[in-house]
Structures are given as C-alpha cells and as structure tokens.
C-alpha cells in the first residue's frame, strides 16, 4: 500500500531539491554589498517607527481566548449540518436536534458563566 505514496514522496523530494538548489546557487553566485539602507527592515517603503515589540493590554488576550472558544465551537456545527438531513430522513430528526441543543446549552452555560464572572467587562 506504500506504492501509492511514492508520487507524493517524489514531489516532496523534487521540491526540496529545487528549493535547496536555487537558494544555494543565489547564495554562492550572488554578489553581496551590504549597506545600512539595504539591511534595514523593509515596510512598504515607510521607515520603521519605534520598537515593534510593544506591550498589549492583557484584556486583548482574554478577548482572543473567548473568541477562539466560541469560534471553534461553531466548527462543530458544520458536520452536524451535513448529516442532519440524512438523520431527518432516517427518522432521527428530533434526536439530532436535541443533540445540538445539548451542545448549544453547554456552550450557553459557559457563556453565562463568563458573563456573570465579569469576564466581559472592559476594566
């Protein structure tokens, strides 16, 4: 069964070969005359102002975590949508709906918990 993976391996090998070859060639043949302007970070032609490693307000982190949580949960709804019609035809529509309802309810409890605990207040 490994024979079917040989083309994939060949693609990988050829890609690695070409990438390595041209990176190596340009490194070997290309002339190098560095000056301060060339060494500076290129940001659409605009000179960089200040340090790029600034501090973020920790609240952004919390918001990002909440977003990830609820965004990821939405992903789980897609497979359910795919099989919902089939389940409906098989006569298990109410069950499928109740399953998603339970899922949404557990999510809702999490949301309410965050809300009541003050996780959504911008302080």
């Amino acid at each position, binding site marked *: *069964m*490994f024979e079917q993976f040989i083309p994939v391996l060949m693609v990988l090998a050829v890609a690695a070969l070409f990438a390595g070859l041209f990176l190596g060639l340009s490194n070997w043949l290309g002339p190098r005359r560095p000056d301060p302007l060339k060494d500076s970070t290129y940001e659409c032609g605009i000179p960089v102002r200040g340090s790029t490693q600034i501090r973020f307000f920790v609240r952004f982190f919390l918001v990002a975590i909440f977003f990830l949580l609820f965004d990821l949960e939405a992903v789980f709804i897609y497979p359910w949508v795919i*099989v919902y019609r*089939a*389940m409906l035809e*098989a006569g*298990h529509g109410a*069950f499928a709906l109740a399953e998603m309802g339970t899922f949404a309810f*557990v999510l809702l*409890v999490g949301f*309410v*918990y965050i809300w*009541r*605990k003050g996780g959504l207040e911008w302080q």
Partner: protein
Amino acid sequence: MTHFEMPLDATSWSVLLPYLVIGGGGLLVMLVDAFVRTLKKDHLSYLTLCVFLASIVVQIAVHPGEGPRLGGMLLAGDWSRFFNYLFAGIGIMTTIFATGIYDRDGRYRPEFYPLLLFTVLGMMVLAAANDLLAVFLGLETMSLATYILAGGVRGNVRSSEAGFKYLVLGGFSSAFLLMGMALLYGYAGDTNFDAIARVLATGGGATILVTAGSALMLMGFGFKVAMVPFHMWTPDVYDGAPAYVTGFMATAVKAAGFAILLRVALLLQPQLAWAWYPVLTVFAVLTMSLGNLVALVQNNIKRMLAWSSIAHAGYLLLGVVTLLSPAVGDPARQALARTVGESAASAVLFYLVGYSLMNLAAFGVVNVLSNRGGEDADDINRYAGLSRRRPVAAATLAVALLSLAGIPPFVGFMAKFYLFAAVVKAGLVPLAVIGVINSLVSVYYYLRVIVVMYMKDTEADSYDGVEWVSVATAGALAALVLYLGIRPDAFHAAAASVIRQLPF
C-alpha cells in the same frame, strides 16, 4: 448512504446516567457559583459532594448490563463501574481536603469544584472507552481540567509554572497519542476496539502502521502515568500544584491512565506482544529504579512523593508487562495463560486502589499542614516533632508512608504481594527480584520522614490550626489502609471478578 445507529434507547440512558450526573452536576455547580450571591464558602463543596454521592448511588441502583454500548463507544459493566467508584471516591476525598484548606486561610477557588467534576467525567469516559475517539475525548477532558487545577492558585509562581509545564508537555504528548491513533485507524480502518481486535486477529495489513501507531500511543499514555522516560514533568508539577491537587493527580489520573493502558495492552496483546513486551520491561525497570533512586535524595516531601509515585508507576507497569509476557501469549497453554493474565490484571486493579488510599492519606496530611501563607509544608525538616504536636496527623502520615514502603500489616504490602506473585507466576522471576529490591530501597526515604516526625526535637509550629475534618478523613483512609492490609481477600476477589469481563 450513511448508516445510523438507533440513537438512545432505555439501556443507553442507563449507561449514560452516571456520566450525565457528573457532567450535569459540574454545569450545575458552575451556574450556582455564578448566580447565587448568598453562597457561604463551603456550600459549593457540599453540592460537589452531593453530585459525587449521587453518581455512586446511580451506579449502585442502575445495572445497564455488560459489554459495549452506545454504538460501541463505551464499555458498560463491572470494569467501568469499578473505576467510576474509584474516581468518585478520590473526588470526594479531594473535595474534603480542598475545602478544609479554604476554610482556614481564605484561599477560595470556586472554579475548583466544577473543574474537579469535569476531570472526573473525563476519567470515567477514559476508563470505560471502547473506541479510540472516546479515549481521546476522555483523555482531553481529563487533561485540560487538570492543567487548570495544577496551575490555578492565583499569584503563586510555582503553581503557575506547574500548570504551564503540564499544559505544554501534555499538549505535546496528546499530539503523539493522536498521531498514534491515526496510524492505528489507518491500519484497521476503524476506531472501535472490537473492530481493531478483529483486524489484528486476521494479522493482515501493514504491520509497520500498527507498530508505529501503538508506540506513539504508548508515549501518550506513558506521559499520563509518569513512566520513565516520559516522567520529566512529574516532580515539578507535583511540587508546584497545591497538595490536594497533587494527591488527586497522583491517584486518579494515574488510575485512569492505567485503566486505558491495560485496555490497550490487552487489545494489542495478540499481535504486538513481541514489540511491547521488551520495551515495557525496560521502561518498567527504569521507572521503578529511577523513581526510587532520585526519591532518596529529596528534602521536599512533595517532590519525594512525586518520585515515589513514579516508582509506583513502575511497579504497576510490571503488571502490564506480565499481561504481555510470553506466558500469557502462549496459545498452547490457554488455561494457564488465562490464570496468569487475570491475576496480573486484578493485581494492578488492587494496587491502584491500595495506592490511591495510602497516597491520598499522605497528601491529606501534607495538605492540612500547609501554613497561613498558602505554602504547603513541603520541607521535611519542618515535620520534626510532629508526633508530639499533632499525634493523629503524624500517625496517619506514618501509616501511609509505611504502607507506601510495603511494610506488612498495610495494604501496600498486600498490593505488592499480589503483583509480584502474578509476575512470578508468569515466570518472570528476575523482574520480581528487581521489584523487591526497589521496594527495599524505597523503605529508606519513607522511614526518613517517620524518623524526623517521631525522633527529632520539636521545632516551633509554623502551621496554624489543623482542620479536623481533613485529619479525620485522612485518618479514616489510614484505617482503611490497615483494614485492607489485614483483610484483602474480599476486595481482591472483587477486583478479580471485574477483570473477568475483559477479553484475554
């Protein structure tokens, strides 16, 4: 067209009931915590205890029968019931210990209770899993909640470090586990244990897939049970987490890890014993020896208990090794193979229960001695003269440590006896000798604490009012350690009957 199982009939509900009680209880505790303004500090712990008790009552009352249920996802019957009782019991003890410490120093963590319930839910699913998906679901539910439990003491750097380390390394090990499952699925074309067993029995397919897959899965489980060489997180995490969480992790997480390790070992035994047996033998010996040797030089009692828990994982691994040994795999002597396999697996179960009892007693005492600043009493020298200041606590800790060392009238001795007897029955005498030598070595560091407690002069007592409920609970556990050490027969018979459900 996709095929659908009949969703939920009456039997499915009765299988699900204990899981629903624990999971729903966790949600209930969360909501009560968020909405009820008039809560006293210990009300949530009473509610949590009620949920655990309700799950035990449900298990006693409802018997859903034996075998795979819910479309083959979970294994119903004595095996899962045994572990559910164990997890609920450990959960109850942990709740009591945690509450005792809040009462005194005002460290109040209401999120602890729902997290504890969700961890137990994950463990129950993991122990009962009959499908790779259920394994992963249970393992992740358990792990994610444990990461927060370990790192959840706000403002404590060591606790945060423990949680962070555990999270990063645990995520890494989960990735290995998932990759292994994917390879095993690629081999068998199914995630169900029974289907995998059928494919393994025919012996067809690419053996490299199942070998590599099972090796990766072994890494994932080995991390959870703190098997050398996947143990590096254990001392730091056990040391940094608060003592009641450490006690919980050292007992319940380990029991869940060994439950699934036993299931997977039995599943793979027909085809992969040749690969797993030598590898696990080396790992078991390394785990025992390294755990005991490093524990010898620890001055911090939580680190000492962490290394000792690694050593005990090594003893437990001997049981798994016995299951995979040539004696069990020998088709010519089926009857003998069955006896050896059953005695090894039941010895592992008995050991898990005994180890949970004595370890919880030990951590219960360590937990209750933590001082007002919230730091655990982890320096061994601070236990000097404890026998005069706190006779009950000192006696409880002494019983627990003697039992961990495997001294006769306690359950630790009987557990080791059953385990080494099974190892000898399989003809692995050298392994049993290594195990006995290791437990001799371990006597030194356990006795050292007892010597400090009973024979050194009293130091100034820096621990405030010892909370009597926790001490009484730890004392009751110590009494149980003594009782099961004297009368282990009934319980051992129960463990043996649980094992009979599993395929050999």
